[in-house]
């Protein structure tokens, strides 16, 4: 533990360097702006920031994106509570008590509770990332190809099963992503796959263009189809935050403890990110909270639970990302992309080879929590003024960011066409309610999955049962199957309940 504390202290010192400190500050402000704007999602914001990191060192790049990720889980609370417009899907549960509290004439108190929740969730997330990452990485050092394949399969199945959308649509999205990752020249045999004689496809499909196109341009096109109907917000200049007293916070310690646990678990389980965490935490409060009957009327418990949980998921996601190289959410997939663009492969060895960088990232998480709360308390008034910008103007610039971002990666016009193609694909996904995250994760993790699968097959004479016979991979594969079976089980149970309801209603009709 002393070693960890020492490394963390060095990380804090490293964070004081001008490049890291500037990245942190910019990341906090931009993350909050992105979360405040209803047209921009947190993941889209992180994607759009990616091109700016090309010229940076890897540490400031990851510090920037992580700061955006953390402050993005907090910024959307302001529009939810004050204007009943969730900046992010994860802010929807905040509407249910935050907005009624504001309507009762207590908007400053509602924002105060949000700040306390974000601070607590952030501290929990940073501490847990530091405490859990090293044991996680030590455990992962025992992994061979079958274990890696099993872990990747579990990560992808979690995203499919818990992503919030229909399972078959999520599976289709995942398969498309995995297929895109196979386009180009294959590593083992040098065979051209799905290039159809088109030279530019030999280099494969850049996952960056898939990400930026589908998340960025796809969302812009979807909003354009709706006529950029979100009206500019007025009255954003009256915002203030009033912190609750310590005694009031202490009274809600059970809510805070429950929501912290929910958030951490949702972070560690792939696919169950901040949105799922915030909904589950609210649901848990509705089931077990002392004031569950009053939820929805504007009580602090309904604000604390979702905000603590959504911020607490960040650390949970960072642990498997750093220790295994497996992202569990859209935002961490982008952060993994940033690592790879800088030639760093996250995994258990990173704690030995790049310890300084890892602990600087951890230190930046602590600093981000404090920074985002200070920003929320003192500087939110000018930040929220961005809501006065017309959506057509902000969307035009988002589209431009997409193109410049994709072009910057390889200075190739082909990537611009890829952005257009995946922008339309992203729009069609959005229109037909297919989730984008499985496709993006499939595209990023596809090569890892294929390599570990093929290596396992070569090492174990094409015996696929190896994935189930080895203890660690066997357990993970069983978890994968359970994760995939869970939605089917849930659907069957819902159907059985619906039948029961019909059966009980029938005699009275």
């Amino acid at each position, binding site marked *: 533990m002393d070693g960890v504390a020492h490394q963390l202290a060095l990380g804090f010192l490293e964070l004081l360097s001008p490049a890291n400190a500037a990245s942190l500050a910019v990341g906090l402000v931009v993350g909050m702006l992105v979360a405040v704007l209803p047209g921009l999602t947190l993941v889209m914001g992180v994607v759009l920031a990616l*091109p700016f990191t*090309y*010229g940076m060192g890897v540490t400031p790049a990851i510090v920037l994106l992580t700061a955006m990720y953390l402050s993005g889980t907090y910024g959307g609370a302001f529009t939810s509570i004050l204007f009943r417009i*969730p900046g992010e*899907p994860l802010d*929807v549960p905040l*509407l249910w008590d935050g907005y009624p509290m504001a309507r009762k004439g207590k908007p400053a108190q509602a924002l105060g509770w949000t700040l306390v929740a974000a601070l607590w969730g952030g501290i929990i997330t940073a501490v847990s990332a530091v405490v859990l990452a090293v044991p996680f990485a030590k455990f992962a050092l025992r992994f061979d190809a079958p274990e890696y394949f099993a872990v990747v399969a579990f990560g992808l199945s979690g995203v499919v099963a818990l992503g*919030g959308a*229909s*399972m*078959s649509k999520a*599976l*289709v999205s995942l*398969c498309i992503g*995995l*297929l895109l990752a*196979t386009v180009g020249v*294959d590593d083992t*045999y*040098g*065979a051209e*796959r*799905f290039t159809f004689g088109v030279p530019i496809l030999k280099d494969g499909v850049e996952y960056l263009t898939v990400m930026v196109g589908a998340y960025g341009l796809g969302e812009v*096109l979807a909003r*354009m*189809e*709706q*006529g*950029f*109907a979100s009206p500019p917000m007025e009255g954003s200049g009256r915002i203030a935050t009033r912190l609750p007293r310590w005694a009031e916070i202490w009274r809600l310690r059970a809510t805070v403890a429950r929501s912290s646990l929910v958030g951490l678990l949702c972070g560690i389980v792939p696919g169950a990110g901040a*949105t799922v965490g915030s*909904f589950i935490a609210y649901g848990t409060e509705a089931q077990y909270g002392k004031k569950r009957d009053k939820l929805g009327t504007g009580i602090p418990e309904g604000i604390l639970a979702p905000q603590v949980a959504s911020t607490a998921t960040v650390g949970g996601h960072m642990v498997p990302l750093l220790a295994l190289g497996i992202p569990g959410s859209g935002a961490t997939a982008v952060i993994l992309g940033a690592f790879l663009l800088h030639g760093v492969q996250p995994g258990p060895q990173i704690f030995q080879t790049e310890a300084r960088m890892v602990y600087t990232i951890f230190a930046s998480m602590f600093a981000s929590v404090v920074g985002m709360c200070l920003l929320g308390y003192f500087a939110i008034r000018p930040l929220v003024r961005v809501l006065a910008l*017309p959506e*057509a*103007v902000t*969307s*035009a*610039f988002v*589209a*431009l960011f997409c193109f*410049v971002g994709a*072009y*910057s990666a390889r200075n190739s*016009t082909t990537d*611009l066409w890829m952005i*257009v193609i995946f922008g339309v694909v992203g729009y069609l996904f959005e229109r037909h*309610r297919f*989730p984008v995250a499985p496709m993006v994760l499939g595209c990023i993790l596809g090569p890892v999955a*294929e390599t570990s*699968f*093929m290596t396992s*097959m*070569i090492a174990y*004479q*094409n015996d696929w049962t190896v994935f189930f016979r080895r203890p660690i991979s066997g357990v993970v594969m069983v978890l994968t199957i359970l994760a995939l079976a869970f*939605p089917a089980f*849930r*659907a069957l149970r*819902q*159907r059985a309940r619906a039948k029961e309801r019909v059966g009980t209603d029938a005699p009275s009709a």
Partner: protein
Amino acid sequence: MLAGAAYLYRSAGHFAYAPRPGELGPDVWPRAILALLMVVCASRLFGHLFGIAAEGAAADASVDDSAGADAPRRFPRLLVAGIVLTILYVLSMGTLGFFVATTLYLALFMLVGRYRRPVVIVVTSLVGSLVFVYVFMKIVYVSLPLGAGPFQQLSVAVLAAMGVR
């Protein structure tokens, strides 16, 4: 999608490579994915044809939805205009250069997006393009397209005025 997957499954059998004894070929992995895709598509199709709901209706109404808001009004013409404009932007960049193409794209995008304040449109698109040129060419060191003929001369003049070499 089912037909497309079946076609790709078939074409995966024609990858040119030198087989190695006892090892799986480069077609195995993509074919496994395509098989899964076909199974999913077929089961969904089967569900629709025979009226079996593949999953609970609640699953489709994902948690991402904004608290059960009404279905928004849609303007397909705006969407088509946006896509056409975006395609024209990419097509014209080689000739017009980044600066001119971007200024036009931003301005037209705002107009197509039904924003009607000409002064704001002109100023934001012009200043926005200049900021992008400066940030990416001077700070991030990305070589953005300069265009051809007179547009190239214009781009070079703009860059020189901003101190970008």
